[in-house]
């Protein structure tokens, strides 16, 4: 068989070269369940050695595959079992010590991020979880590559409002500890409702307790491919045609992810996990989810109609991608971070996009409020209110929602936070100035919702 199709080859190269098609992340999911022991130093050693053993070739092999197929693999990452489950067996637990050991291992193997410094507290805290929350800000501030997440609620269990308040305080304390870097520490932390166990994306990637010893999960990307295809479509093409086109592009993006994932997993001699069918933007111009809204006909993201555009986009991406991969998982859908998307930043600058509209959009997007910078003097109770609203959307709609918000200490509306790299830069957004204090201070747990009588 020596057939090849010239048009298809040129289309693929164009997608990679001009429209920034890439594999956003190859994430090694690694269980730490065999690392529990009663001494923190021994635990740290076991974790460190296990990471080195499994991940030593991850970056090298990913680079080789990237070279062979000429498609960028932007990030190489590791996702670990939630550390609170491992650390609490220690008699002398010190989460900062564990964080530093994990971070050291991440630096040693050369990955971009290492996640799973996490706790699952949707129904309540263990003694270990409480210590974890206390030590988390320092752990985040004293590490480079470490990412952390907490699950605060589920549709089955309701929302742990005590944990929401603690999380708001963790975000603020981390922001203060990293204020010389525009509060970057808070960008490496996310809180979830209905967290998924096989997500390859940071800051929320962890290896769920139901997951295998290890697996390779892939996050694909290519919002530029979708926006350019829609832009080339006739302006009068109806929604059926637009949706069909998105499905086709999502198929092409996903098959590429599947190929690269399987090749890399084989090379690493570990099982292939899932593909996260995602459209994840980067700060590069043209690699933007906001551009897709514009191509669909909205003047700016945030204009009335944006929620519908996003709902259709998200659904079509899933429909197109699902045919292209044998195992789909993670957060699958379109991400709408602000600082990582040049089009979203522009929309905020033009006052087209507010935090309230973003909140509405999270009811139909892949995750939630993502990479949003807010004034550094925002009270903890207001941050807790923002988180509570997002948890409510996830809990009632049985979807994953999240908050990754950065109170930028010393800065306010009109100024910018600079995070660098994939995290980009963010205009600081206005939050509602009325108080949520008495509401969130009630604490306790929001009971699990009813799953019938839907309206």
């Amino acid at each position, binding site marked *: 068989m020596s057939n*090849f199709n*010239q048009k*298809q080859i040129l289309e*693929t*190269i164009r997608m990679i070269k001009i429209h920034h098609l890439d594999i956003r992340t190859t994430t090694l999911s690694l269980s730490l369940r065999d690392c529990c022991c009663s001494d923190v130093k021994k635990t740290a050693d076991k974790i460190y050695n296990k990471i080195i053993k499994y991940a030593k070739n991850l970056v090298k092999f990913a680079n*080789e595959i990237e070279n062979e197929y000429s498609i960028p693999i932007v990030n190489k990452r590791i996702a670990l079992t939630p550390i609170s489950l491992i650390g609490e067996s220690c008699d002398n637990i010190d989460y900062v010590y564990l964080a530093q050991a994990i971070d050291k291992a991440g630096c040693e193997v050369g990955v971009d991020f290492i996640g799973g410094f996490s706790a699952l507290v949707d129904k309540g805290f263990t003694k270990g979880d409480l210590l974890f929350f206390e030590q988390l800000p320092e752990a985040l501030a004293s590490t480079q590559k470490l990412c952390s997440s907490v699950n605060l609620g589920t549709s089955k269990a309701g929302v742990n409002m005590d944990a929401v308040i603690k999380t708001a305080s963790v975000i603020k304390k981390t922001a203060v500890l990293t204020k010389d870097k525009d509060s970057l520490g808070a960008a490496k932390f996310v809180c979830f409702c209905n967290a998924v166990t096989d997500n390859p994306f940071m800051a929320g990637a962890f290896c769920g307790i139901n997951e295998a010893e290890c697996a390779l999960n892939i996050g694909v990307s290519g919002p530029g491919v979708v926006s350019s295809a829609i832009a080339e479509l006739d302006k009068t093409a109806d929604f059926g045609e637009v949706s069909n086109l998105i499905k086709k592009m999502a198929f*092409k993006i996903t098959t590429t992810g599947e190929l690269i994932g399987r090749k890399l997993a084989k090379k690493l001699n570990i099982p292939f996990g899932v593909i996260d069918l995602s459209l994840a933007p980067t700060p590069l111009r043209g690699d933007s989810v906001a551009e897709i809204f514009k191509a669909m006909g909205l003047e700016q993201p945030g204009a009335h109609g944006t929620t519908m555009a996003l709902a259709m986009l998200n659904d079509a991406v899933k429909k197109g991608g699902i045919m292209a991969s044998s195992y789909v998982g993670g957060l699958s859908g379109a991400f709408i971070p602000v600082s990582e998307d040049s089009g979203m930043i522009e929309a905020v600058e033009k006052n087209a996009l507010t935090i309230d509209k973003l909140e509405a959009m999270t009811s139909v997007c892949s995750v939630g409020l993502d990479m949003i910078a807010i004034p550094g003097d925002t009270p903890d109770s207001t941050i807790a209110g923002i988180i509570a609203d997002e948890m409510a959307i996830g809990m009632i709609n049985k979807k994953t929602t999240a908050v990754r918000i950065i109170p930028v200490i010393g800065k306010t509306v009109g100024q910018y936070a600079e995070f660098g790299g994939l995290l980009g830069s963010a205009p600081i957004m206005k939050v509602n100035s009325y108080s949520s204090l008495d509401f969130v201070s009630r604490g306790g747990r929001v009971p699990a919702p009813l799953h019938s009588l839907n309206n």
Partner: protein
Amino acid sequence: MSDLEDNQIIITVTGKDKVGIVAAVSNCLKKYEVNIEDIKQTIMQDNFVMIMLGNIKNMKVTFREFKEAILELSKELSMEIWVQKKEIFDKMHTI
């Protein structure tokens, strides 16, 4: 996956047309013992476009070394050259 799939590569050369492009690329492939199985060549909007199907079964160096040599050649020729395993195109465009 068969060996054939793993050994087939696509070399895409684009840029301003000039004398000796095919010869230079073919020479480089010969040097690394990459067999040419098919060639298609056109002019698109004044641009020279050549796509070659190669087989690296007998290649003696690593893929990276071969690719570096091709990229070096692309600089000499002032042409853009992409080298990729063929499988990426097969997977992307077929159900």
